[in-house]
């Protein structure tokens, strides 16, 4: 696989075209808005959390293929996870996509999320993959009103 096929894997192209859990939840228990001012990507994340378990999660918005697919895959994974599990997934995801390209990916731990590791070859695109996850953390922490602006992170290149 060349680096572009690695970045735009079939799974990503599929989720981009047919995003899962796309749309709003009318009265969510948790909500946050994610915004990347650099490219204009915009994402609304809705969740219903009952007794510490994510019962329902949906998203709305517009963005590039990477951010859209990342949001879509994230929603499929989060369902029925506890808040702690979601936070741990965020950490593993963030670590993986910001690691240098030499680092081996823990595919077992990451599962479906491993497809996003292609962004490591494209430092400018790491933010795209991370946006939904940063929005998730804001929603969990109750920062509903604030739109997040991800500053350019240190991508090692």
């Amino acid at each position, binding site marked *: 696989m060349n*680096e*572009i096929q690695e*970045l*735009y894997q079939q799974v990503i*192209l599929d989720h*981009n*075209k047919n995003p899962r859990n796309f749309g709003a939840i009318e009265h969510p228990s948790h909500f946050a808005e994610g915004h990347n001012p*650099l*490219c*204009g*990507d*915009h994402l609304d994340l809705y969740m219903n959390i009952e007794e510490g378990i994510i019962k329902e999660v949906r998203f709305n918005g*517009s*963005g*590039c*293929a*990477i951010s859209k697919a990342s949001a879509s895959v994230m929603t499929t994974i989060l369902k029925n996870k506890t808040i702690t599990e979601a936070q741990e997934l965020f950490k593993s995801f963030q670590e993986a996509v910001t690691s240098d390209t030499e680092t081996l990916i823990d595919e077992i731990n990451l599962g479906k999320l491993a497809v996003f590791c292609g962004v490591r070859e*494209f430092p*400018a*695109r790491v933010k*795209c993959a991370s946006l939904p996850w940063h929005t998730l953390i804001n929603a969990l922490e109750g920062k509903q009103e604030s739109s997040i602006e991800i500053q350019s992170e240190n991508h090692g290149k």
Partner: protein
Amino acid sequence: MFKFKIQEGLKVIQPGQLVEFPVAQIRGDFPILQRIVHNKPLIYFDNAATTQKPRSVIDTITNYYTSYNSNIHRGVHYLSQLATDDYEKARKIIQKFINAGSSDEIIYTRGATESINLVAATYGRANLKSGDEVLISYMEHHSNIVPWQIICEQTGAKLIVAPIDDNGDIILEEFNKLLNDRTKIVSIVHISNSLGTINPIKEIIDRGHRYGAVVLIDGAQSVQHAKIDVKTLDCDFFVFSGHKIYGPTGIGVLYGKRAILEKMPPYQGGGDMIKSVRFERTIYNDLPYKFEAGTPNIVGAIGLGEAIDYLHSIGIEAIANYETRLLNYATHVISEIPGVEIIGKAKHKSSVISFVIVGIHPHDIGTMLDVDGIAIRTGHHCTEPVMHRYGIPATSRASFAFYNTFEEIDYFAESLKKVIKMFS
């Protein structure tokens, strides 16, 4: 390698003209064009963001630091004299380049952005009062919006915005209606960086003057593509950046009419902008030094002078001619690709093509092209109001310079087709 493919039936290209413009030889003048990116030859289509530098400019910079680096003005030693001479020689080159009346009217700045900020902070602050109006257009770069917002906030003046139509042209009837006796400053871009529109600035300048306004023209995207004559234009201010005209970054120009510049308060205080300093009273220096506090970008100015000399060696009209052919060819080729929509269809356009592809985000297009060695820009191009006007978050933008070729445009089109195929 750089022989052109002449496509049959393509009306926009006159085969006879092609051989006249020595693009292969010109490409040899730009070392960076030999670069390989992602294992592909670099195709540089991001010229509206910054242009590449010819060998002569690079050598000039190296030579300055290698053989006569020193501070200018008031230096009694040999090197200081050499540096001062070249720094001032460049000012004269710039003066002639835009046909200013005197080199005193050429103020060195960091770039077009600083030039506009300078005018806003000095002329604007001294002349605007509550109820006055500053007239700009919808297609301005953020650098021709925000400085005015800041000064309007401080003075109580109002920022008025002239609308544009779907093609990306200023609606002149609306612009004329917005002009009135309260209009003190008109600040308009000559060529839009995101749409490519060439504005009818002569008409705009004349109309502004009829209402007693001073008129600033943002020439950041025009000096490299068209002959500028500030005397004929009769604009009060004209600004541009060195790095967009094949010179170094960090150097730019503010042209202003002498009578206006003389009345303006200084911009920054410091060395070089004074005649004498006492704690009781400081006397400011004459033009242009009144606006050039501190050690300037000496090599930047010298490098910019060299870049202009280089352009003269090719001829700005020959450049404009060739770039128009590149634009027409690219417009034709891109329009043929199903799903691609060009944003900005003004009648008079510069060699900038902004486009969107239905269902594919500009970021994904940019990444895909990059892997093919093609450098374009994606995003809002520092013109967010333009994006809002068209209801889009961003565009992809290809902008051409005279070292680009028809062959590169063909390759670019093929690469775009691959992007569309992958995301369909």
